[in-house]
């Protein structure tokens, strides 16, 4: 299975993602933002970081990069595109997933482990996962998911909410919402469910001696789903 990770100026989770994808069997290529064409891929990942120094709005400049037209075409033809953290911010700026990510409610950069609950397993990312609650890591300043009331209704009607912030038992409540996101939303799909944007970093949870292995469960399942 082939994957591509796009590196933007200011990306800093691109190599972590490369390590994670390779560990679970992907043949991964790093792709520079100024390239024209994506290599043949089964999965494209927009990694975390601070592309273009978060100038203007997080992800806004990167969403206009040369490679993004190729990524958008790939997504529109049904290809799997996953944006993590800054990658999620880039995805909302392209319009591939709805909504926007605002500054965290309490104006703090948040860096900690959180639990997330999967909402929908009818997609290539979470199908066959034997867990509903996963522990991932978050590290962001702008993760406060927002959309209009009409958009939220559409998102809910189409089952586009991918993951919610919750506690260890899977309770989705305000007190487990780290950043003020509407409805505790931590990740969103496009309508067709081939594009996933999420704030948590599964690539940081692939080694027991570092922080945990729920990322391993996610990536193992993902590659099996794509095969």
């Amino acid at each position, binding site marked *: 299975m082939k994957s591509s990770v796009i590196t933007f100026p200011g990306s800093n989770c691109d190599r972590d993602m490369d390590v994670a994808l390779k560990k679970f069997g992907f043949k991964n290529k790093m792709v520079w933002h100024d390239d024209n064409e994506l290599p043949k891929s089964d999965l494209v990942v927009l990694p975390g970081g601070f592309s273009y120094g978060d100038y*203007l*709005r997080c992800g*806004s400049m990167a969403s*206009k990069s040369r490679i993004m037209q190729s990524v958008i075409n790939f997504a529109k033809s049904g290809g799997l595109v996953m944006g993590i953290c800054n990658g999620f911010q880039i995805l*909302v*700026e392209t319009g591939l997933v*709805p*909504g*926007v990510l*605002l*500054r*965290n*409610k*309490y*104006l703090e950069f948040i860096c900690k482990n959180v639990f997330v609950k999967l909402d929908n397993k009818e997609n290539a990312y979470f199908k066959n996962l034997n867990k509903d609650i996963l522990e991932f890591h978050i590290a962001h300043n702008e993760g*406060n998911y*927002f*959309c*209009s009331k009409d*958009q939220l209704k559409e998102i809910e009607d189409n089952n586009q909410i991918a993951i919610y912030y919750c506690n260890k038992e899977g309770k989705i409540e305000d007190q487990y919402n780290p950043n*003020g996101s509407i409805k505790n939303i931590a990740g969103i799909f496009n309508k067709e469910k081939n594009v996933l944007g999420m704030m948590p970093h599964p690539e940081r949870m692939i080694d027991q001696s570092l922080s945990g292995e729920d990322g391993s469960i996610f990536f193992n399942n993902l590659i099996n789903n794509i095969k």
Partner: protein
Amino acid sequence: MKVSAIITLKKDVLDPQGKVIHQALDGMGFENITEVRQGKYFEIDVNENDPSKAKAVVEDMCKKLLANLVIENFKIIETQ
């Protein structure tokens, strides 16, 4: 010709920075404030002498990059 654009957050979007600035102003003794909203201001020198054409170019920029219309509104002002 210089054209300016002001980007503001839409009414129903939370502006935590504006809130903090409001509180700071309150603490400094500026008590007569009901709300503070923070926005962005751009001054763009367009190589164009026709004001309506220059404004149209900046409007296009706002729609495509300078503003995110999910959360922001923009206003174009012709300066000189």
